[in-house]
């Protein structure tokens, strides 16, 4: 269970997250939605240790994530796919994927190999491009690679920041289906940030609506999806 209590974070004087509290259940997809600048990406960056929190607490399966470096947090099973196409352009596709599993390579040699081949099975396009430099991939291919890089570490919590960005509708469907599948089969928990509230709420179990850095709604996804007043107030439709 991911538990966030009274979290506050800021960029210098800009308060990006003001007192956020919610919990995300293990094995479930929780989606965080909200308008541009609501603080969704910041929230994920604070969870994964990329940005410091001013105060509050974040615990994942009993471990506090606060004041830990990103690399330590990844080792606790929290993988983050940040906004944009977070791959390393000058490394090949294969190296990018391998990189995601580096820290497990000694302890879980066998499993790393399996995980890598699973990624290629998931995105055959990447297998075709194994030795191509990631920088020359198309935008969507890069996004697939970024997701593979995160999944190959066999996370227990996956932080996904706008995975649909730049992906063809078909691929979005496929990725969402895969993630849903993983949740069921491996108990993966997902925190999904999306602009696209409908898509997100359609797949998620639970929804958290942010506005200007605060939680304005925290309820089952199906309820939130049905609440048109909420949507028009905070999402503009």
């Amino acid at each position, binding site marked *: 269970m991911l538990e966030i209590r009274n979290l506050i974070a800021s960029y210098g004087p800009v308060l990006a997250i003001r007192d956020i509290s919610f919990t995300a259940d293990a094995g479930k997809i929780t989606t965080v939605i909200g308008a541009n600048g609501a603080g969704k990406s910041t929230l994920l960056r604070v969870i*994964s*240790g*990329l940005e410091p929190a001013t105060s509050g607490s974040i615990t994942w399966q009993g471990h506090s994530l606060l004041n830990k*470096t*990103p*690399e330590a947090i*990844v*080792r606790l099973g929290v*993988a*983050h796919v*940040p906004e944009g196409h*977070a*791959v*390393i*352009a*000058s*490394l090949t596709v294969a*190296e990018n994927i*391998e*990189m*995601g599993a*580096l*820290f*497990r*390579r000694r302890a879980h040699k066998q499993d790393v190999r399996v995980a890598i081949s699973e990624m290629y099975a998931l995105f055959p396009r990447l297998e075709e491009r194994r030795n191509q430099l990631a*920088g*020359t991939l198309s935008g969507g291919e890069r996004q697939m690679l970024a997701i593979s*890089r*995160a999944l190959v*570490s066999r996370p227990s919590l996956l932080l996904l920041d706008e995975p649909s960005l730049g992906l063809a509708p078909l691929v979005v469907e496929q990725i969402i289906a895969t993630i849903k599948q993983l949740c069921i089969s491996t108990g993966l928990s997902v925190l999904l940030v999306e602009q696209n509230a409908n898509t997100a709420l359609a797949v998620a179990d639970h929804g958290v609506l942010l506005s200007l850095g605060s939680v304005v709604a925290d309820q089952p996804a199906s309820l939130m999806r049905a609440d048109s007043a909420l949507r028009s107030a905070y999402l503009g439709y």
Partner: protein
Amino acid sequence: MDTALTTLFLGTTRGAVFALVAMGLVLVWRGAGIVNFAQMGQAMFSTYIASSLIISGHGYWFAFATALIAGALLGALVDVAVMRPLTKRSHSGILASESMRATVPVIASLGILGILQSLAGMLWAAEERGFPSPVSDVAVKAFGKTAPFTNFDLFIIIVVLLTLAATTLFFTKTGMGLAMRATALNPEVARLSGIRIGRVRTLSWAISGVASSLAGLLITPSANLSPNTLDLILIVGFTAAVVGGLESLPGSVVGGFILGLLIAVVNVYDAPDDVFLALLIFLLVVLIVKPGGLFGSKRVRNV
């Protein structure tokens, strides 16, 4: 014919040392994305340490090992004291543009160079020093003729080739090598992949420190040691690294040998006064014809 042969050997042995310097530069470049202009300052410092040990009666190999360790520590120190705080800075203000982010570490490393040279001046400046070689530095004799190279020359070449082989394998075949490359190229993504970038960076600085100390220890026997003597070597080594493409370890070694030969040829067939001019012209020609260096990846037109 004899002259040609001498030139060839001279170029090769000198080139080996340049190659070592270039490798040190490439190591930091690939591990931390920075060209370390303080590198030969570090080498000078650790060679002075070795020299002081030897003068005070310690054995050569003890001093040699100490210098390598000192090199590693200095490299690590430079990373922890300078480069880490630098990379922690937010990318705003003057660091907002990529060109400045590439420039600022260069300046920082020049600051380190100044500090190291001044410290060495304070500690040891009173005189220039020689430095011993580990193996016999007397021309090899075979078939009653003196060969144009010494055992020490052979030693240098072997050391360089071994270092090349070891580091190349390290980078391409090991996880730590991949971690280093990833860290240099995109620290944020590297951290998100669980790579402990602090350690990885420090390690690459330390390795580079060892390589450059090695270069210092191997070049000073044929020249002298003073706070500034290794500056020129750095410049030649840098040129070698750029000629090789700055990315590629084999490239840097080839670059080192090319420059060694170039300098030998200019020295022998033209005049030593023209060495640096030749260096400049060669560098410009390489960069104009192949801006990414001979072994560098081709840069794509990009928006």
